[in-house]
């Protein structure tokens, strides 16, 4: 019983986040207005047949900065493990600064 509890505790403690990548574009002088976009996909048993969830993020940013330009964009790609093999997720986040024309 003790072994089972210990095993379950260890498995639960295995939840963690892996940083796949970070990128950044040139940072503007005007950094007064921050905008961001985020995409998330839950993976059951690590099954994932396409990465379409990551598409059109630039449109999300543009919609938050109409008639302007988003610069200084930091894009971060993460893999989350909630429970090994069973429950995982991808999270992609982009933060930038809106520059009005």
């Amino acid at each position, binding site marked *: 019983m003790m072994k089972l509890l210990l095993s379950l505790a260890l498995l639960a403690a295995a939840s963690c986040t892996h940083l796949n990548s970070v*990128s950044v*574009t*040139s940072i503007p002088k005007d950094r007064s207005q921050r905008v961001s976009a985020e995409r998330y996909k839950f993976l059951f048993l*690590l099954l994932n047949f396409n*990465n379409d969830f990551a598409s059109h*993020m630039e449109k999300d940013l543009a919609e938050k900065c*109409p008639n*302007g330009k988003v610069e200084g*964009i930091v894009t971060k*790609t993460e893999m989350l493990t909630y429970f090994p093999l069973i429950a995982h997720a991808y999270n992609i986040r982009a933060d930038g600064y809106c520059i009005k024309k």
Partner: protein
Amino acid sequence: MKITFLILLALQGCAFVHRHQIQNVDGDILGPGARRFEFLLSEMGVELAEGAKWVSVLSTNRNTGQAANSVAEAVALFQMGPRTGNPVYRLDFTDKLTQELSKICGGGRVSSLTFLRETNKYPVVSGEIVKVSGYCLAGTK
């Protein structure tokens, strides 16, 4: 045992995201003069260690399986180090990226580029892909 393995083989197609990068975004992409484009640059990746594993499981001869594992271990020594996806045999498959981007919008401006490095994984082989998308802005320099 082998039937279970074959079912797993059939279910193994999976897509992985390695890296996603967004360049500076123009608000003009929401306007009527913007046209979205998307193209892929890809190459076949091969995971020899996984191939050896399949050979050893599916083979009826134990010596064949052991030999396959030995070869895979030797090959793995040449493929150590950090990487995204499986090894490929052609390194230059992304070299035409700039060329493709230059001609895709004709005389217009290429804007708001995004790059997605992904792997489409199948048994033993994989598609090592760079997906590029962006917008052509007509009439702007």
